[in-house]
């Protein structure tokens, strides 16, 4: 089965090529969607087979590399097209193909009747291909190809409704901000290659070879620089401070795209990358601290913005940014397994939430369309009381919301609690622990609050639609609801693969399968930490139980506050807004981050660009080029009289030339 790993990325690529080249001719939506979804399903089956085989091996043998061919070979540098199978990439393959397939299926229903249906599926398949390259590539360069590929597809899909200016702008914004991050990724790659090659004569970019040479990297110093460069790449792709502002704007794309790219898979690439490079990051406490602080800050910061947004997708977008912050927090405290765990559970419930919101938007759009109303179908202020009309959507949405809020028993609880516990108890950052934990806990409270605010505003209470429009609301077709149900189930059971140790022991020795499963990938980091002797004071089991209780209380407090504000006394939010208008405005306008960025970066760059255009390019560059042209023109103006255009003159000069040559030959 391992030998078939190349099929996983290849299937979506084939689907993409077919849809891209012939989609316009095929026209039939079922066929196009079937090809796209089917190709991803094929990959999913192969990925399942590979996972099965991987699980059947003993822990230390769970890795396999399949090199297809040598892509670039130049001197010491060698890059293969090759795939790496290990527990980490296997998780990612399963998430990308599994969730990807569900979203492809969903898209068939959601995109029904859209212009450019084939284009959408071509891009979506291309995205899946790139993402699979990213997560299964066995070297940094192939990963970078996937990394760029997903960025490109993200750009294409955000700008899918390209006739809308806001969508085009959002696409460009995402692309440019990602470029800033990619720049960091490349610099990190170059620095690492240069350092390892120049200092230790280890010329490699292959992950496993790098990991086996990890002891060559010094603690701190150049490692910190490399890690920070890589982390810059991660902040761009995974929407962390300071490069997060593109993600909320990316909601201009179709909703399934937001679910697949901007929630479940692409934005987690940064987390995956840090997990993949854990042996490097563990060597640099400074970089880890930066990662943890940025993650914690992003988690809290984005959560505050999420509390005041009215667009259903924007709330979810800020929620995504916030949850990604959690993952980086986990990475930053050295709990790589917990970060990847949260990545997986987040993929389930966030995809479910986005698809659910898509279902709501879909229904709202049709209802408003019937009424010829131009009200915004994404604005929660227009919704309310939808649970009666859309029971399946409501149920799945509620489950996913409970999961993200961290209600015990659901997937989000296990992963989020694990992160908070690790943040509190990890031995890396000393005094910072409690601050990191505090940030995480606050963010958890806000998450529970704004997610239930969303649920209450959307599904509960009296409808704010007109009666006629409300009458036209109806549940979405099965292609839309089926993925919702599957994802909701996964949001429930997904967490049980990683039951925390304390609970497991209480329940009779259920091991934490997740940590055990990922152990081989992070073996070096674990060993290193042991050797470094970074033992914090031992935390008691009671402490862990206590913290778990705190998180549960926090979650329910957030839910309770949302219920109080939006169900029991719906007047309070308005009163609050009136009491603190400046605060509300600031939060509603995302703390004016876009404006600050415009002022600090965009406008100076624009001014510089304008100067270079008008001052340098037009005068100096064009001046040189035009000057050369003018000189040539002057000379040719004189010489052109030689070119009479008359055949006779040409014949004459030709004969003269022959005669002169012959004469020269004869008389020499």
């Amino acid at each position, binding site marked *: 089965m391992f030998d078939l790993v190349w099929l996983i990325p290849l299937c979506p690529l084939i689907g993409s090529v077919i849809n891209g080249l012939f989609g316009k001719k095929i026209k039939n939506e079922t066929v196009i969607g079937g090809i796209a979804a089917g190709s991803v399903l094929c990959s999913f089956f192969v990925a399942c087979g590979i996972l099965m085989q991987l699980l059947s091996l003993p822990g230390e043998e769970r890795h396999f590399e399949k090199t297809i061919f040598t892509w670039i070979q130049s001197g010491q540098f060698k890059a293969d097209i090759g795939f790496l199978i290990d527990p980490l990439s296997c998780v990612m393959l399963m998430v990308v193909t599994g969730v990807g397939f569900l979203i492809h299926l969903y898209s068939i229903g959601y995109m029904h009747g859209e212009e450019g249906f084939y284009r959408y599926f071509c891009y979506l398949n291309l995205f899946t291909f790139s993402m699979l390259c990213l997560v299964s590539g066995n070297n940094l360069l192939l990963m970078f190809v996937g990394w760029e590929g997903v960025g490109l597809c993200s750009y294409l899909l955000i700008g899918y409704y390209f006739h809308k200016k806001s969508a085009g702008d959002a696409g460009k914004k995402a692309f440019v901000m990602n470029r800033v991050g990619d720049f960091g990724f490349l610099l990190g790659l170059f620095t690492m290659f240069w350092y390892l090659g120049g200092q230790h004569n280890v010329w490699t970019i292959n992950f496993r070879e790098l990991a086996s040479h990890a002891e060559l990297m010094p603690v701190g110093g150049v490692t910190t620089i490399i890690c920070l460069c890589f982390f810059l790449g991660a902040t761009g792709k995974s929407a962390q401070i300071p490069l997060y502002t593109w993600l909320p704007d990316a909601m201009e794309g179709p909703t399934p795209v937001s679910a697949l790219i901007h929630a479940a898979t692409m934005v987690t690439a940064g987390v995956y990358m840090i997990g993949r490079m854990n042996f490097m990051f563990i060597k640099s406490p400074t970089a880890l601290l930066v990662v943890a602080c940025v993650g914690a800050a992003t988690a809290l910061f984005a959560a505050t913005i999420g509390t005041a947004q009215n667009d259903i997708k924007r709330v979810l977008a800020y929620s995504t940014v916030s949850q990604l912050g959690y993952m980086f927090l986990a990475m930053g405290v050295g709990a790589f397994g917990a970060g990847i765990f949260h990545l997986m559970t987040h993929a389930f419930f966030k995809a479910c939430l986005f698809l659910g919101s898509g279902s709501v938007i879909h229904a709202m759009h049709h209802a408003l369309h019937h009424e010829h109303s131009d009200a915004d179908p994404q604005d929660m202020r227009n919704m309310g009381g939808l649970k009666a009309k859309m029971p399946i959507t409501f149920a799945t949405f509620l489950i996913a919301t409970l999961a993200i809020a961290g209600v015990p028993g659901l997937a989000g609880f296990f992963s989020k609690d694990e992160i908070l516990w690790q943040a509190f108890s990890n031995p890396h950052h000393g005094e910072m622990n409690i601050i990191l934990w505090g940030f995480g806990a606050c963010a958890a409270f806000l998450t529970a609050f704004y997610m239930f605010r969303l649920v209450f505003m959307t599904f509960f209470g009296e409808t704010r639609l007109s009666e006629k429009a409300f009458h036209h609301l109806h549940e979405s077709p099965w292609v839309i609801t089926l993925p919702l149900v599957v994802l909701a189930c996964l949001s429930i059971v997904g967490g049980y693969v990683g039951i925390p140790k304390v609970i497991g022991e209480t329940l009779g020795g259920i091991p934490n399968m997740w940590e055990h499963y990922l152990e081989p990938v992070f073996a070096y980091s674990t060993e290193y930490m042991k050797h470094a002797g970074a033992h914090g004071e031992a935390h008691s089991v009671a402490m862990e139980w206590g913290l778990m209780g705190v998180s549960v209380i926090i979650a329910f407090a957030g839910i309770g506050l949302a219920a109080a504000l939006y169900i029991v006394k719906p007047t309070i939010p308005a009163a609050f807004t009136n009491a603190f208008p400046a605060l509300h405005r600031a939060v509603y306008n995302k703390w004016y981050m876009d404006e600050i960025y415009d002022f600090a970066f965009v406008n100076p760059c624009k001014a510089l660009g304008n100067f270079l255009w008008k001052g340098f390019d037009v005068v100096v560059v064009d001046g040189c080029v035009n000057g050369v042209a003018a000189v040539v023109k002057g000379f040719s103006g004189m010489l052109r009289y030689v070119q009479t*255009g*008359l*055949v*006779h003159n040409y014949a004459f000069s030709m*004969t003269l030339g022959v005669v002169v040559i012959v004469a020269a030959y004869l008389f020499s």
Partner: protein
Amino acid sequence: MLALENYLVLSAILFSIGTIGVLTRRNAIVIFMCVEMMLNAVNLTLVAFSRYLGNIDGQVFVFFIMTVAAAEAAVGLALMIAFYKNRESIDVEDINVMKL
């Protein structure tokens, strides 16, 4: 037998007359005829050398030159017809699309 120089000088005279014709006449057909005359002057040289050196190769060359001349005649005259169709003239002064 006559000296070889006789033939060669005659051939040179014919060749030069052909050259002058090509350079001075304006009628494309006449120019074409002058070119044929130059080819014939060369043919005469070749046959004369072939005879005086006792080697048949020169005459085979003449044979090929005649073939080329025939091909040239076919294509050249077709060109002239095509040109005449466009310009109603076969004066080379009218072949001036290259002129500014």
